[in-house]
C-alpha cells in the first residue's frame, strides 16, 4: 500500500492525515507533490499527522525533510503529529528530532501555530 494523503482545514492550518507507507517511488513522490501543491495554493501552516503511517524508509524521511524545507522557505512551518514508536526511533537515529516540532496531541499542536 502506498501512502494516502487526506487534507483538512482547521482554521488556517492544513492538517494532512497520512496513511500507509512513505517509501521510495510512488509514496515519496505523492508526498512531495502534495506539499508543493499546498504551498503553491498559499498554505503556510501545515500539520502532518503520521498516526496511520506504518512505515517510512530513508527516501521517505528525505521527503519529510524536503517538505519541511519547502514550507520553511515559503515562510511557513510544517510540524509532525502522532508519530509511531518506529518513526520516533528513526527521527532519533537521524537526529531530525532537532529539526521537527513533534506533537502527540492535535489541539496542542494547532495551538502552537497561533
Amino acid at each position, binding site marked *: 500500500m502506498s501512502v494516502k494523503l487526506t487534507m483538512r482545514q482547521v482554521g488556517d492550518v492544513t492538517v494532512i492525515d497520512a496513511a500507509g507507507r512513505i517509501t*521510495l*517511488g510512488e509514496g515519496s513522490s505523492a508526498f512531495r507533490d502534495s506539499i508543493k501543491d499546498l504551498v503553491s495554493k498559499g498554505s503556510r501552516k501545515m500539520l502532518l499527522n503520521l498516526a496511520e503511517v506504518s512505515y517510512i*524508509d*530513508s*527516501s521517505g*524521511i*528525505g*521527503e519529510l*525533510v*524536503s517538505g*519541511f*524545507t519547502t514550507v520553511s522557505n515559503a515562510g511557513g512551518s510544517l510540524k509532525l503529529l502522532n508519530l509511531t514508536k*518506529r518513526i520516533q526511533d*528513526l527521527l532519533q*537515529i*537521524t*537526529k*531530525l528530532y*532537532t*529539526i521537527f516540532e513533534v506533537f502527540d496531541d492535535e489541539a496542542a499542536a494547532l495551538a502552537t501555530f497561533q
Partner: protein
Amino acid sequence: MTDPANSSFTSIDQYLESSLDTVESTENRVLELAQQCGLPEEDAYQLGYAVREAVVNAVVHGNRYSANKKVHLLIRKQGSTLEIVVEDEGQGFDEQKQGDPLAEENLLAQSGRGLMIIRAFVDEVDIVRTEAGGTRVAMRKHLPATDAV
C-alpha cells in the same frame, strides 16, 4: 540450548533485476526468513529495513536501474547469525567521501541516511568494493537462542 533456526532454512543465492519490485520482494523475503529463524518482531523489522536500504542503494545508486546489471542477493545462516549480502554491479563508492548525515550542515539533506540506519539496525555491517568495482554490503543479525523443548 538449541539453535532457533530450524532445519528447514534454505539459503538463497540469486541475481535479481535492478528494479523497485526487487526492493519490495527482497524485504518481504527477509521478513519471512527472519520470522522462520525466530527473530523477535522488532528485530525482524529492523533487519528487513536495513536490507531494503541496501537493495535501494544497489538498484538506484549502484546499478542505476540498468536492465543489464543485476543485484546479487545472498541470504544464509551461519551458526546463530543470519547474514544477508547485497552486491551491485555499479562503480562503487567511497564512504569516506560521504558527508556525515548527523553534521548540522547535513541535517536538511534529502538523502544520505541509508547507511547510517543500516548500521543502527543490524549487529554487524561490512561494506567493501567488489573485484568488479561494485559495492558489497554484508549485514549480520544475531539470532536468539531458545531452550530446547
